């Protein structure tokens, strides 16, 4: 989501980072790393790919940040366009190798217990399989809204679409995912009644 710091503080941090301030760069990295990681994980379905691609995205940001201009888009929208391009690039490479979305063997999250990790993995795999069948725009909206935590306005800017359009796409995507998830045999229950 768009936390309070983004409204006023983000601009100062981004401007300092553009000037080469190392602490500002580190702060930007810390703020956006989890969101970029989740977005790429949602698109790629593999934590290892997500780790590598997230690092690559930040290196691309480093190369391009001097060209970033506030009047074009919010920083988050600009950053997730780069992330999207990295995903598309990676997909193209994998497409050339004939690779499909791999499902991860494990999610190395220290804070989770083994059962929770397995449950999360299964849930992610289920959602990923369902999302695989969605049109690209719907998959992208779902990833940006649910994984990257962008608002509708930021999602719209990142996708170069209108907010109304994003809301419609979002509605259709959730309805479709719900339908598909309901049709599949449930392999786990999350425990949230």
């Amino acid at each position, binding site marked *: *989501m768009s936390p309070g710091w983004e409204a006023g503080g983000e601009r100062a941090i981004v401007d300092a980072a553009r000037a*080469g301030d*190392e602490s500002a*760069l*580190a702060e930007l*990295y*810390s703020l956006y*790393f*989890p969101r970029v*990681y*989740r977005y790429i*994980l*949602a698109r790629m379905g593999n*934590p290892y790919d*997500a*780790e590598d691609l*997230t*690092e690559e995205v*930040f*290196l691309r940001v*480093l*190369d391009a940040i001097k060209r970033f201009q506030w009047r074009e888009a919010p920083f988050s929208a600009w950053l997730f366009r780069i992330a999207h391009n990295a995903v598309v690039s990676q997909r193209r490479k994998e497409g050339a190798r004939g690779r499909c979305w791999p499902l991860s063997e494990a*999610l*190395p*999250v*220290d*804070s989770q217990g083994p059962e929770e990790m397995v449950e*999360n993995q299964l*849930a*992610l795999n*289920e*959602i990923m399989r369902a999302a695989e069948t969605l049109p690209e725009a719907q998959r992208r909206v*779902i*990833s940006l*809204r*649910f*994984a990257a*935590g962008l*608002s*509708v306005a930021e999602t719209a800017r990142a996708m170069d679409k209108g907010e*109304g359009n994003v*809301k*419609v796409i*979002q*509605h259709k995507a*959730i*309805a479709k*995912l*719900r339908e598909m*998830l309901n049709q599949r045999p449930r392999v786990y229950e*999350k425990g*949230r009644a």
Partner: protein
Amino acid sequence: MRRGELEEILEECLSALLEGRRSVEESLSLYPAWRGRLEPLLRAAEEIAAAFDETPPPQTRERGLQRFLEAARTRHRLREIFSPPSVGVPWWRWAPAGLAAVIVIAALAFLSATLMAEDGGRFSDQVSVRPYIATPERTAPPASVQSPLERVQEQVAVLEEAVRQGETVEVGFLEELEEASSELAESLEDPGEVEFLDRMAAVSAASKEYKLLQSLQVQSSGYEARVLEASLAAAENVLEKLGATPEPEPTVSPEPTASPEPTAAPTATPSPPPTPGAEATATPSPTPVPAPAE
């Protein structure tokens, strides 16, 4: 129901759910009229959000941060190395200066090319490099590398052979011989500086030349006679500078009843010399008697 109303309400409830401001139940209670359509969507959204709620491994995050900062430092260093201080100057500040520099360089290049072309034309004889034209049929070294004496010796040998064979001697050849003899005479301005052997060779060549030319002079007329005369004078000049006196052509006794017989004018006839005309006792002119050089 207004068009797009469901999407608006869904988005409002979804934002509240994702930001942790409201639960699904709280949102449904806010929109009781939409409960039937909202609830399945919000439940599905809750499940999707939970599935994507993954925290990246801390070691991955830390490692990535270190690499990111190292890359930033490397880029900064490279920028410092490869970017001059003026890198921050916008292009419109340095563009006029750059354009002026290009124009000046182009003008200088054009002027240099023009001057070089003019110089090449003016002093072409001195400075131009003439292209080498291969003349495979030519066996003798080019005239420019021969000394005047060598040229005279060579041409006298050719002349002697032509006279002996009774071949026609071209006027052009005689002109070349005259030119070579003149050069030889010029090179003998100070005979004391000339090697003894060269002097002897020059006397020998010039004497032979003189005799051969004298033999040709008898039959020549017109332009050919004038060229022969000039060649004789040149040979005579050489002999004069060397202190030698050319030997006159021995006179041939005329036959008393001989009438002049026409001979081919431009051809050189080999010895014995042809019968002179009416002036049987005439000696070939000129027969200078140069004063001794020393």
